[in-house]
């Protein structure tokens, strides 16, 4: 009995932690505290993946989101002035826009959750809980392989990276004038 009750208990614990921290991400007034709460939310979802018997996904979640995204987020906040990020009194237009986006998202998620398309047909294509199997599936070009999605995602990331470099790069004229004036 204990063995059955424990995962359920852990699930509700993780869910409660996620929801509480997610609430404080949105409502928190200090941006860095919000980032820390976000880290908690992401770590809790890694815990949920562990509960679903996918340790690899949990590891990647911690590596990419907690160790990568949140660290970059904190870094970006530290580089900018915090006062610019605080918006105490958003304009009416922004409030309306925000509300509309939130409503649309809620509607979409509601439709997704209630629509009966969540058949288990994809389950056969899922690799076992084994890193080697996941690796082979990622490079498999066959029926159940993920080579194409993997390459598409790589291309997307490459484009994002080049975009980032182009935006961050100083214009050539500016570099030249800096060289001249020392």
């Amino acid at each position, binding site marked *: 009995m*204990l*063995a059955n009750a424990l995962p359920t208990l852990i699930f509700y614990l993780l869910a409660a932690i996620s929801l509480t921290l997610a609430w404080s991400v949105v409502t928190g007034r*200090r941006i*860095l*505290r919000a980032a*820390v709460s976000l*880290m908690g939310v992401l770590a809790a979802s890694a815990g949920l993946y562990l509960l679903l018997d996918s*340790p*690899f996904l949990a*590891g*990647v979640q*911690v*590596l990419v989101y*907690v*160790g*990568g995204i*949140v*660290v*970059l987020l*904190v*870094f970006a906040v*530290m*580089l900018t002035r915090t006062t610019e990020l605080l918006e105490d009194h958003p304009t009416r237009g922004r409030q309306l826009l925000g509300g509309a986006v939130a409503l649309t998202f809620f509607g979409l998620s509601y439709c997704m959750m209630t629509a009966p398309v969540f058949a288990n047909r994809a389950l056969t294509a899922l690799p076992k*809980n*084994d*890193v*080697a199997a996941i690796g082979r599936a990622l490079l498999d070009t066959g029926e159940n392989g993920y080579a194409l999605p993997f390459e598409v995602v790589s291309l997307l990331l490459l484009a994002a990276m080049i975009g980032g470099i182009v935006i961050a790069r100083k214009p050539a004229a500016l570099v030249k004038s800096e060289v001249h004036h020392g």
Partner: protein
Amino acid sequence: MAWQVKTIAQRTGELLPGSPWTAALYVLLTILAVTAFVTVAGLVLIYAERKIAAHFQCRVGPMRVGWHGVLQSIADAIKLLMKEDVVPRDADALLHILAPVLSFAGMLLVMIALPMSPSLQVADMNIGVLYVTAVSGLGVLGILLGGWSSNNKWSLLGAMRAGAQIISYEVSATLALLVVVVFAGTLQLSGIIQSQDTGWWIWRAHGCGLVAFAIFMIAGTAEINRTPFDLAEGESELTAGFHTEYSGLRFSFFFLSEFLNMFVLAAMASTLFFGGWMPLHVGPSGVGGHFAAFNGVMDLLPPGLWFTLKTTAIIFLLMWFRWTFPRLRVDQLMRLEWKILLPIGFVNLFVSAACVVTGFYFFAR
């Protein structure tokens, strides 16, 4: 001879169906043991660092408390615990308290995965190497938050430097890790050790292992913020960097995790490149191996001792670095990573992949 790996997690799992309370007690004892190990290892490392530093500089180091000053660390620890714990007035108190805890947690969670001997490892995860890389990312978050929440310009600068440095060098360290993963064909730490039954990866891979080890040591030293990469707390420029405003217990948390990170780095390096607890073997040990007798002699030393010896040797190397190389400038630091280490790391990874595909390495199966 095949090594039977049995972790503490497995033993707990065996206890769980019969007597859950015994299992719970076992877990509690494990937690206590890990905590005790971390504390004692921290004290020993601090003492060793001071003694070794002293002898490198032709001094004698701590001599007064106990025989040759062996009790000095304990005296210092008691002093730190008695100190007033100050939170700066305009600091973000919550984050100020959270930061050292995060840093410490990052180190402690890695500790769980370290294989110290076939019978002494808390948990042997299928995703071992990935887990270690992922969890050690918490440490940098602790440093960043500590620097920010102190509300001090030196802390902030130190934290920014540390963050930039750790994020950059993580790439090279991971590339070096991947070389061993490619050769061993597994992410499991005990599996990586078992794969070195016929020789350590540093020798078996025609130089790939050697290059990867060098990159791993350089990048690892940068990740744990030790000299020559200690810009984050360069005391001549930033007083003490990100932990300028920390005192008492919370400072000791940062301090302890920094020293234990050195242990973690050394343990990981010995696990990946020097076979961890695996004795020095040349070729297969069974009947027909040319060096079977040699391997048998090497097996006389217990695996736990092998692990300790290798890890200690690498820790000594890290302390040696500190008194050999001058500190790098920020631009030199970034150039070293992005223009030198990273290209070498990528080429090395490709060459090792080619070696694995063609079976062109010593004692390939």
